[in-house]
C-alpha cells in the first residue's frame, strides 16, 4: 500500500488539471439554450404520443372505448391491448445479463388486459400535435373489473417477510447475541422510525423520441443507462443491438429514476413502429409519477445498548421496505449499520412487503440515505441518554476494521472529518442542553451525523485518439446527468497525456461510442477514469514505440515509466519531443488506443476486492437549524459537510455533487413525501406544486470541504461522490431539531 501512495504522490507532482476547479466544458451550451435534451429534436412527420393511465390498482380491463378519441381530428392511432402487437416479455433478472436488471417493471404493456397498479398505461394516443394527443387521451374510456388490491404500506408492514440476500447485497447479518446484549445493557435506546415514499423529480420529465428506418431504430432518450437501454430494446423488439442507436448527450437530472426502462420509452418505440412515424412522448410531470417508480417507504427499528462510558454493546437495525408485485428492488436499508460502529454485538434484518403499486426503484443512495437517518438519529438519542457529546460517542465506537467481518478498510478518515469539521463549524460553542440556544423567536439547534456510501466500479470501454494537429478525443458512451462527467474525464486525459485541457474533447451520450458504465451507484467517474488512464497509457506507449524507431529521437532507449508527459509530448528531464513531432516523423495522422474491461475480468476483480477490503466515501455533516418556537417551522440555517472522498478531480463539480446531495437530503428531512391513497393506491400529489422539493429559500449557504487524501485502491485515488452527500443529512437535521427542541423526530 505504501508503494501505491508513493506512486500517487509522484503522479501528483505532474498534475496540472486534476483537482482544479475547472469550469464545465458544457457550461456554455447549457447557459445559452444550445444544449438539446431528449424531447427537443425534430423529425419530419414527427407525431406526438400521450398515455392513458389506469384508475384502479388491480383488475382486468373489461372494455375500452376509443371511438371519441379516434374522432378527434389529427389523431393518428389509439393503441390498446386490443390492437397493439405484443412486445417480447421483459427478461428475467440475471446478474450475467445486467441489462435484464433494467426493466422498470415486468408488465408487458398493452399485451395484457391486467392492471397491476393505479396509473399503469392502458392506452397510447398518437396524434399530429401534443395538444391533440393529450385531449384525445382524455376521451378514452376504460371499464375495469376491479380485483382486491393490497396498497397500504403501513397496514401491510407487520406482514413483511425476510428479504432474500445475495453475494453483493446481504439482507441479514448477526454478530453475537445482540438481543441478549441489549437486554443486559445499562443504557439503551429502542426507536421506531418511518420514512415516506419519495420521487426523484428531475426537472426534465422523462422523454423519448423513437424513429424507425426499416429495421433500424434511433432513440433519443433521457436515460442514465445508454447501453442497458439499447440491450433492453433489442430484447423487447427482437432486433439486434447493432440496429439500435441511443442518443442521450444531455440528461436533465436522473437521481436513479432514469436508470431503469419504464413504460413511456417502450410504448414510444412501439407506437413509432405501428404508425410508421417518428413519435415523441414527453411525459407530463403527473405521467412521471404514474409510470416511474420512486423511493420505497421504510419502517425501521434501531436499538442500541451501551455501557456507561458509551461503548456500544448491542446494535439492532431492522427494516421493512416495499416492492411492487410487478417489480422493484429490495433496498439495503441497514447497510450503514454494517460499517459505522464497533458494536460488540450486531443484529441486522431487512424485510419486505409486496404491494399492488408501481415498482420502487433506486433514488439517490438507495438504502443508505434512509438507513442512515435511523441509525444516526438513534446514535444521537443514545448520546443524549448517556450525556455524552454525539461526536465523542461516535469516536468511542469508531471501528479499526469493518465491524461485521473484520475486513480492512481501504481507507477511513471519519475521525479526521469530525475533528476538522467540528473546529470549522464551531461545534464547541454548542450548549448541549436542549432548547438552550435561542435567537429571538427561534430555537437554535446543532446536530451532526455521519455520511457513508460504499464505492463501486463498473466496466467501461474508452478510446483516446491523438491527432497530428495535437487534438485529443476521448470517446465513451457516458451519461451527462449533471455531474460534469465530460469535464472531469477531459481533465484526467489532459494530465495523463500532458496536453492543454483546451485540446481535449470528450464525446459522450451515444450508443455508437465505446460502452460506458451507467450513471448510477456513484460509479461513473471512477469507472471511466480507469478506462481513460489505461487508454492514455497505451497511447503514450504507441507514441514512444514510434519515436524509438527513429535513430535521431531523444526518446530512443527510454522506457515510458522514466518519462514525463508534458507540453504536448514525452520528456526525460529537458530532453524529449512532442507527439506532433513523433507523428510527423512517422508520417501518421493520428494514434488511437482503447481501455477496456471485460465483464468477467471485472467481476473477478470486484469479488476478489470485496473479499479483502471494504471501501467507501464518507463524511461528517454539521447542521444548524432554527425552529420557530410558536409554529414549529424548521429552517436549516447553516451547514458544513466535511468529506473523505479520496482524490477530488474537479473542485467545482465535486462541490456541486456533494451540495446537491445535501440539498436533496434537506428535502427528505423537511418537506418531501409522495402521498399514496391507502384505499386506491393512487398517488395524490403527482406534481411539483404538491410535492415540495427544496427551493432557493429553503437552502442556506452550504460549506463543503474534503480531506483530499487518495484512496489507494481506486483510479487516481478517487471515490464516487454522487450519493455520499445525501447520506446522514436527514439525521443531521433531526438531531439539530432534537437539540433545539428536545423532541426526537421519528417520522419524516
Amino acid at each position: 500500500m505504501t508503494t501505491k501512495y508513493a506512486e500517487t504522490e509522484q503522479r501528483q507532482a505532474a498534475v496540472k488539471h486534476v483537482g482544479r476547479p475547472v469550469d464545465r466544458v458544457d457550461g456554455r451550451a447549457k447557459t445559452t439554450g444550445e444544449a438539446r435534451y431528449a424531447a427537443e429534436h425534430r423529425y419530419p412527420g414527427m407525431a406526438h404520443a400521450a398515455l392513458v393511465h389506469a384508475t384502479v390498482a388491480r383488475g382486468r380491463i373489461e372494455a375500452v372505448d376509443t371511438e371519441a378519441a379516434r374522432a378527434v381530428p389529427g389523431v393518428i392511432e389509439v393503441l390498446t391491448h386490443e390492437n397493439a402487437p405484443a412486445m417480447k416479455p421483459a427478461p428475467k433478472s440475471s446478474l450475467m445479463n445486467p441489462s435484464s436488471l433494467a426493466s422498470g417493471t415486468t408488465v408487458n404493456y398493452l399485451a395484457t388486459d391486467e392492471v397491476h397498479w393505479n396509473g399503469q398505461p392502458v392506452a397510447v394516443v398518437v396524434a399530429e400535435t401534443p395538444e391533440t394527443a393529450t385531449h384525445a387521451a382524455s376521451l378514452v374510456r376504460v371499464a375495469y373489473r376491479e380485483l382486491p388490491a393490497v396498497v397500504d404500506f403501513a397496514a401491510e408492514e407487520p406482514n413483511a417477510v425476510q428479504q432474500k440476500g445475495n453475494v453483493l447485497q446481504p439482507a441479514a447479518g448477526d454478530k453475537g447475541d445482540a438481543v441478549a446484549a441489549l437486554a443486559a445493557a445499562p443504557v439503551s435506546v429502542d426507536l421506531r422510525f418511518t420514512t415516506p415514499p419519495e420521487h426523484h423529480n428531475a426537472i426534465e420529465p422523462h422523454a423519448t423520441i423513437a424513429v424507425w428506418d426499416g429495421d433500424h431504430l434511433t432513440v433519443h432518450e433521457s436515460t442514465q443507462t445508454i447501453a442497458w437501454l439499447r440491450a433492453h430494446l433489442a430484447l423487447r423488439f427482437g432486433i439486434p443491438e447493432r440496429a439500435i442507436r441511443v442518443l442521450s448527450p444531455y440528461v436533465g437530472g436522473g437521481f436513479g429514476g432514469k436508470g431503469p426502462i419504464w413504460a413511456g420509452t417502450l410504448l414510444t418505440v412501439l407506437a413509432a413502429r405501428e404508425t410508421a412515424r417518428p413519435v415523441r412522448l414527453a411525459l407530463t410531470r403527473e405521467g412521471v409519477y404514474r409510470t416511474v417508480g420512486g423511493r420505497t417507504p421504510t419502517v425501521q427499528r434501531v436499538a442500541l445498548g451501551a455501557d456507561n462510558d458509551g461503548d456500544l454493546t448491542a446494535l439492532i437495525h431492522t427494516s421493512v421496505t416495499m416492492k411492487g408485485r410487478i417489480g422493484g428492488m429490495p433496498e439495503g436499508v441497514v447497510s450503514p449499520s454494517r460499517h459505522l460502529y464497533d458494536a460488540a454485538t450486531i443484529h441486522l434484518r431487512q424485510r419486505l412487503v409486496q404491494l399492488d403499486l408501481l415498482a420502487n426503484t433506486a433514488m439517490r443512495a438507495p438504502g443508505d440515505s434512509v438507513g442512515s437517518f435511523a441509525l444516526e438519529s438513534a446514535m444521537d438519542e443514545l448520546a443524549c441518554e448517556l450525556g455524552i457529546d454525539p461526536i465523542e460517542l461516535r469516536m468511542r465506537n469508531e471501528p479499526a476494521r469493518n465491524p461485521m467481518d473484520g475486513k480492512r478498510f481501504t481507507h477511513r478518515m471519519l475521525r479526521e472529518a469530525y475533528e476538522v469539521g467540528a473546529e470549522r463549524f464551531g461545534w464547541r460553542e454548542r450548549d448541549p442542553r436542549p432548547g438552550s440556544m435561542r435567537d429571538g423567536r427561534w430555537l437554535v439547534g446543532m446536530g451532526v451525523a455521519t455520511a457513508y456510501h460504499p464505492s463501486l466500479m463498473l466496466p467501461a470501454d474508452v478510446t483516446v485518439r491523438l491527432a497530428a494537429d495535437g487534438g485529443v478525443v476521448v470517446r465513451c458512451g457516458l451519461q451527462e446527468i449533471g455531474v460534469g462527467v465530460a469535464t472531469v474525464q477531459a481533465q484526467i486525459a489532459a494530465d495523463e497525456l500532458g496536453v492543454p485541457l483546451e485540446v481535449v474533447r470528450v464525446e459522450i451520450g451515444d450508443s455508437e461510442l465505446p460502452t460506458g458504465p451507467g450513471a448510477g451507484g456513484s460509479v461513473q467517474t471512477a469507472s471511466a477514469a480507469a478506462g481513460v488512464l489505461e487508454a492514455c497509457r497505451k497511447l503514450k506507449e504507441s507514441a514512444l514505440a514510434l519515436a524509438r524507431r527513429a535513430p535521431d529521437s531523444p526518446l530512443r532507449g527510454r522506457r515510458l515509466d522514466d518519462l514525463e508527459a508534458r507540453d504536448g509530448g514525452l520528456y526525460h528531464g529537458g530532453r524529449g519531443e512532442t507527439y506532433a513531432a513523433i507523428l510527423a516523423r512517422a508520417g501518421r495522422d493520428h494514434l488511437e488506443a482503447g481501455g477496456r474491461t471485460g465483464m468477467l475480468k471485472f467481476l473477478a476483480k470486484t469479488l476478489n476486492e470485496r473479499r479483502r477490503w471494504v471501501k467507501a466515501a464518507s463524511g461528517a455533516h454539521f447542521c444548524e437549524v432554527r425552529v420557530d418556537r410558536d409554529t414549529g417551522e424548521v429552517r436549516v440555517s447553516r451547514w458544513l459537510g466535511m468529506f473523505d472522498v479520496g482524490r477530488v478531480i474537479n473542485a467545482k463539480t465535486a462541490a456541486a455533487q456533494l451540495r446537491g446531495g445535501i440539498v436533496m437530503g434537506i428535502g427528505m428531512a423537511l418537506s418531501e413525501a409522495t402521498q399514496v391513497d391507502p384505499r386506491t393506491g393512487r398517488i395524490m400529489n403527482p406534481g411539483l406544486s404538491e410535492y415540495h422539493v427544496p427551493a432557493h429559500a429553503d437552502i442556506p449557504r452550504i460549506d463543503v470541504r474534503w480531506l483530499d487524501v487518495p484512496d489507494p485502491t481506486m483510479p487516481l485515488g478517487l471515490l464516487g461522490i454522487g450519493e455520499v452527500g445525501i447520506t446522514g443529512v436527514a439525521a443531521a437535521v433531526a438531531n439539530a431539531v432534537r437539540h433545539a427542541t428536545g423532541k426526537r423526530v421519528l417520522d419524516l
Partner: protein
Amino acid sequence: MRVNGAAESLDIEPWVSLLDALRDRLGVTGPKKGCDQGACGACTVLADGVRINACLALAVQYDGKEITTIEGLASGDDLHPLQAAFIRHDGLQCGYCTPGQICSAVAMLAEHRAGMPSAVMERPGELSEAEIRERMSGNLCRCGAYNGIVDAIKDVAGQEVR
C-alpha cells in the same frame, strides 16, 4: 410576436401555450418544460422584459409582444453577464432549469432596481443573499445548485452597483 428580436408569425390554435408554441412550433427549445403548471420555473421567459412562466401563458395572449428567451440574452459570442457568471460560479449541473434560472435572474435584478419589494426585504436597495433566495424561489433546481446560482447573481448585481 417577436422572439429574440425576430418577427414570428404563427397560425395556431387558441389553446396552445406560449411554451409549446416556442418549443414545438418555433423550435426555440431554450425554455424548458418541467411541470407545465407554473410550479418549477424552468419555462421562465421575458415578455416585454417581465418574467413569466411560459407554460401558464397562452401564445395568443402575446400577440405583438416581445419575447426574450435564453437564446436571446447573449450578443453574438459575448455571453450575457449572468450566463458567464453561472458558468464561473457553477450555478448549474444538469442544465435543465438553467435557462429559466438565468431569465428569471435577469428580470429579478430589474425588479429589484425598480424598487419592487419582496417578503423578506429589510432595506430598500440592498440585495442580500436572503433577498436573492426569496426572489428566485419560483425557480426550482433539483440538482441543488442553489449556492452557485446565488453567487452568480450576487456577482452580477455587484458589477451593476459598481
